[in-house]
């Protein structure tokens, strides 16, 4: 039996629809760093969490892209080391967590944009 591309396309659309705790419309940023594994549930140290900007981009079959923006006011003083994707507006568990290797400290004169793309293959 073969899983068809139609199945993958519909799965991707379902992830982008953010229904029933499927898909992650929130991105959180943090100043801590930790080893990330499959049992990781959140950031080492939270700083802020924002809803994605607009709607997810699902124009390409089997792909979902989320873009989230953070203003200079939200970032001011942050040395960003991690970011993660969440379903809930606060608390909850992460769908994805990433450590940064290019560490940047934000002074209030920068803005941040995080773009995440998932592919159902």
């Amino acid at each position, binding site marked *: 039996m*073969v899983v068809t591309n139609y199945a993958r396309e519909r799965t991707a659309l379902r992830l982008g629809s953010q229904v029933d705790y499927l898909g992650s419309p929130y991105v959180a940023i943090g100043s801590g760093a930790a080893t990330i594994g499959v049992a990781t549930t959140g950031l080492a140290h939270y700083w802020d969490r924002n809803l994605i900007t607009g709607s997810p981009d699902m124009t390409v079959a089997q792909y979902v892209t989320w873009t989230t923006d953070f203003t200079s006011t939200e970032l*001011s003083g942050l040395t960003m080391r991690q970011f993660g994707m969440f379903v809930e507006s606060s608390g909850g568990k992460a769908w994805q967590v990433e450590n*940064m290797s290019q560490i*940047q400290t934000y002074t209030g004169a*920068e803005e941040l*944009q995080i773009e995440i793309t998932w592919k159902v293959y």
Partner: protein
Amino acid sequence: MTLYTDVQIGSPIGSPFYSIGSFFKNLRVRTSVNHQSNTFEGEVYNTSGRRSDYFTLGQEVKIYHDITSPATNQIFYGRIEAIDYNGMPNKETIRIAGRDFTNYLMDAKVQAVYTSGTASVCEVGSIVRDMVYQSPFSGTIAVADVSGTSTVLQTFRVKNKSYYEAIDQLRKRVDYDFYIDFNKGLVFRPENNSPTGYQFNNANVARSSFNEDLREMYNKVTVYGDRQLITDRQSFTADGAGSVFTLIANPHDTLVTVDSTKKYGAVFEMVNFLPTGAQYLVDYDLKKIVFISGTAVGHNIPASGATVLVEYGRSNPIVKEITDESSIAQYGLRENVITNLEIKDPQQARDVARQELERTKYPALDGTVSLTSSSISGLLPGQTVEINLPFESVSGTFKVFETTYNINKENLLANSTITARVGNRIQNTSDILKNIILKAQAVEAHDTDTSDFITRARSSTGSEGLDYKWFVRTRTITGFGFLLSDATHGVLDTSTLGPNTYSAYSVLESGGNFLI
């Protein structure tokens, strides 16, 4: 004091541990960064053939080298790729040899083109991850340690090169090192960011050799990419007397019309007699169209007032040249010309020229140090060490680019198993031969293209999974206007009403597995 070595062999790998002296007669391990795969070669006692059935091709090998027993510092993880049986009465031995898992990168070829646009951002680290993701060894070689960079390429094209060469090209663009680690993970990280703290001096260096060489120094680099054919058109008004019309470029594939009537051409001075039907000749070197007239060919010179239209292809080379004047003033001009027909973008040619100049504008220093130390368990590729050898006029921080472990009972007891090459690699005969082979392969691959259609027969089973990629971008704000809630720019009476000025977003880092 003595050094210790243990070896595990098997599929899957596990106990027992084989030692030097009773099992191995000698063992040599060579580890390298950016240049070749790590290799091992060992000779095993096989008196009366007692170990003849111990080894099979493909068995995994782990080698440990340490200052304490049991040895836990791993220096090699690979497979047996060659087994030789040598027989002399009562002195039989078996030679086994192989490479580490860099062979995955070396034994498969990639053909791809990456172009930055609205749909994708070709950050160098993301290209490396995507190439591995699309490769036959995806899932075997991990990419978690492929670091992102802040360099975004407009175009990157690779034609039927090994994955190793393609990644080597990319790492040169960003001054990164790469190798396969002991967890079968591809490591792609900034150069010189892994200090050991080891100090090499007269106390622990038994032998040393340092060569400083101008021969691989270049302070003027010219990069030739592929030539692009574009169509040009020139119009002339004939005066009825002249038969020669001079173009502004050497013409390819000419199409000549006189008052919209197509004319037929031939090559100037190609033959001693004019070919039948020819009405004009093309002089490529002098960029001329010459209309011919005579008894055999008739009268073809355009009449006065006639419009002569010449359409032809112009071959535009992609060439970028860059120099370093201070190096030229100090060492004299040394020029390097790089020809790479895969380069079809002037920006890529400029980037390659710039990086090559940065890498070669100063003389190379290649050092070899043989250590005598009971406190150094090993040196990993890309690590840096401090060297102070005043008699060789050498002092400073150097990157170790190759480590050789010559392991036998005598060297272990004398703490003298490790020889390290540091600094910049000066090419030897094998490097020159390798470059010749690679250039020949590049010439053969010239006519292939990433858009070529290839039929494949594959079997598949059903599955579904989730993969990801990400980009983090930043931009700066200058010329601040009023910014609500900002501690500095949100204070009434001190901030200016008006818009902020934003720079464009630039990629800070990227991650994930695929790119496109």
